[in-house]
């Protein structure tokens, strides 16, 4: 399980980094999205992988899922969602103003 999740996060991060280094805005935005997926998963598993455990401390329960990373992930998702929306609009604006989708606003290179 741990290995699977680690490979997943690693793959997402790798794809994200590769896409961010592309020279068109659309792949860059996709890359940012991949990176935020990776980091959200990463935050989630930082509370350790637990299955079927309650997230609330109660008597006669010794093992429980850590609720804090879930709260952190929720915040991170909201923020990255807003940022992705913003960067998409900004890329569109750049595309409409420049007439192309190169990140530097240049013509075909």
């Amino acid at each position, binding site marked *: 399980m741990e290995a699977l999740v680690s490979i997943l996060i690693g793959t997402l991060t790798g794809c994200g980094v590769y896409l961010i280094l592309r020279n068109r805005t659309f792949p860059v935005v996709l890359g940012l999205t991949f990176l935020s997926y990776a980091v959200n998963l990463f935050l989630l598993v930082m*509370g350790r992988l637990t299955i079927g455990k309650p997230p609330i401390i109660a008597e006669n329960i010794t093992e429980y899922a850590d609720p804090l990373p879930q709260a952190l992930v929720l915040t991170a998702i909201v923020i990255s969602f807003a940022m992705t929306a913003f960067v998409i609009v900004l890329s569109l604006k750049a595309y409409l103003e420049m007439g192309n989708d190169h990140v530097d606003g240049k013509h075909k290179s």
Partner: protein
Amino acid sequence: MISHIAILPVIWPLLMGALLLLLQKQGLQTVRAVSIASVSILTVLAGYLLNIVNDGEILVYELGNWPPPFGIVLVADRLAAWMLLITALVSAFALLYAIQGTDSDGPHFHVLFQLQLFGLNGAFLTGDLFNLFVFFEILLLASYGLLLHGGGRLRTIAGLHFVIINLVGSTLFLFAVGTLYGLLGTLNMADLAVKAAGAVDDDVALIRAAGLLLFAVFALKAALLPLYLWLPAAYAHTTAPVAALFAIMTKVGAYSILRVYTLIFGSQAGSVADLIAPWLLPLALATLIAGVLGVLASTHLRQQIAYLVIASIGTLLIAFGINTHTSIAAGLFYLPHSTFAAAAFFLLADIIATRRSEMSDRFEPGPVIAHHRITGVLFFIAAILIAGLPPLSGFVGKLLILQAAIPHAALPWIMGAMLITSLLTIIALARSGSMLFYRAQLPQAPHTAGGGDGSGSQHILTPGVSGLAIVICLLSLCVVLTIGAGAVSEFALATANQLLQPEDYVQSVLGTAR
């Protein structure tokens, strides 16, 4: 009421931002009045808070009354209050300049401005690492809007780069925060300090990695050497009041470096102590040199000032990198100076560029501008301030840093880099000043060249002097800083002492001795 003073600087701009959104239909004059009033009150609040914490007290505000380390805390100590005051002062003058007309170039300028202050103040006051991330996002999202205010192709591309690089930075921040939480089980900075110092050997390497990842994020915000490339285009192409406000933005990175690496990874942090000591000073020196080379190579005045901001960050982080009481105090004296001077210079550059009309701020002989004498004198004063010539605060700041560097092993490097870059800055600014003022031609030339819209150029060539008055006010803040250098450096030394004794901070937050 008094116990809630620590949260007021955070909540006030948020409420005012929301109020301004509702007031949009009441017309620009109302919005401007409320916006100015809000920032004025914020300045008073920051001054009051500074007065309260000046005796060494650390105010801890538990949000929702959740006791730390479980809840989020706001912590107001000397450093936080100092940063709040500097932010409030710079933003007040930037806003005064903006209401001269910049704010009507696009919608929601004042709302974004208040939200930017909300993010900045929150970042300075928070005592929780994840909350710091959230406030970073708030101030960044507001800054994206402000940066793009007014539109334009160059601004859009510079904005796109700024947004993407900061989004990557945010992701790195989350990776670092996640790693720290996974290893130490807390995000409260005071609690992190305790837990990091007592970390078990197996975790030390990962904690150090997370700490260095955080350093990369803060270095990106502060525009430290390999990560400064986003800054010149972004600052040079945005509107003047926004660029002036952004003079404080790089200082947020410097503040975070100072806070996190004295508190969590400071010299008493056991196996993770002095984490960035081998990195900070060399990188800061390289940033200073690279910044000044950029100053020399600039072809536009605003671009030149953007590189001056990078050079000043280099100088500031040299002071923090020496990492003694006196050097951090010197840095805390230099910080407001460089912020005010850079803000004033950005506004002045806009005044010059507007008056040169289509010549803008390119370093080419242009027309003789309106009010050229007073503008020239102000340029001269701003250049002296930024280059660090006597008698003004830039000189005092650099002198204090050099004095603090004397016992340091890298003294030749620090001394050499700072003195040579000062000389190069003087040369570059003298060259641009003489290009803009001495080599200016008779005013007929631009009239014939841009005669197409006579009314427009007439309007541009005879602007009011209120913009100049604001620049004079900002520059006189630096003069005040020079005259009050004794009191300010005493305060800065007390701040540095407080920072280098994180036990007090930890004890105030957690209520127990370390």
